[in-house]
């Protein structure tokens, strides 16, 4: 069985499974120097993240009922662009060569800004270009 032979939803299941593991590890690598506290903090933040994800999924369901297919497709596709762009930007921004340029490492507020801007940019791209191209 090769990766290419898997269905697209299975690939997405694998991708999001991988993202969940990476996210959990990134959260667990908190500022706590003691392993025990790092684990507790990590688990607490991971639980909160999952709770907020459930709340966001429910909110999206309400939104899907209120908006038509086209509006929801635009928003959902733009959200994918936003998430991927934010991941790439945060990774690049954290690299040594960026710090060597005198640019401060990203903080939470800056990354929130990046997420919002890239979501909005994704929306604008799909709005002008269309969802079929």
């Amino acid at each position, binding site marked *: 069985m090769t990766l290419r032979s898997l269905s697209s939803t299975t690939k997405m299941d694998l991708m999001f499974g991988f993202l969940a593991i990476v996210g959990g590890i990134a959260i667990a690598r908190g500022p706590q120097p003691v392993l025990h506290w790092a684990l507790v903090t990590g688990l607490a933040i991971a639980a909160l993240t999952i709770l907020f994800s459930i709340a966001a999924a429910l909110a999206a369901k309400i939104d899907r009922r209120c*908006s*038509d*297919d*086209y*509006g929801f*497709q635009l928003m959902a596709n733009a959200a994918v662009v936003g998430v991927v762009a934010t991941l790439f930007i945060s990774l690049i921004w954290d690299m040594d060569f960026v710090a060597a340029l005198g640019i401060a490492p990203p903080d939470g507020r800056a990354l929130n800004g990046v997420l919002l801007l890239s979501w909005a940019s994704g929306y604008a791209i799909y709005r002008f*270009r*269309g*969802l*079929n*191209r």
Partner: protein
Amino acid sequence: MKNRLKVLRAERDWSQAELGSRLGVSRQAVNAIETGKYDPSLPLAFRIARLFGMAIEEIFDDMDAGS
């Protein structure tokens, strides 16, 4: 995917907003379908077909079907 939505709408002298309200979607959604920027979902395609009293394939032409 090509479609005859604009022609069918013009034949009935409906605006995009009017068609949108009959279908329960926004004017922008109607515009996006007419200009080929967006393919409607199956439930919406059925609603369009019912509204015009036609079969889906009489309104929408899947250009990839022949290849």
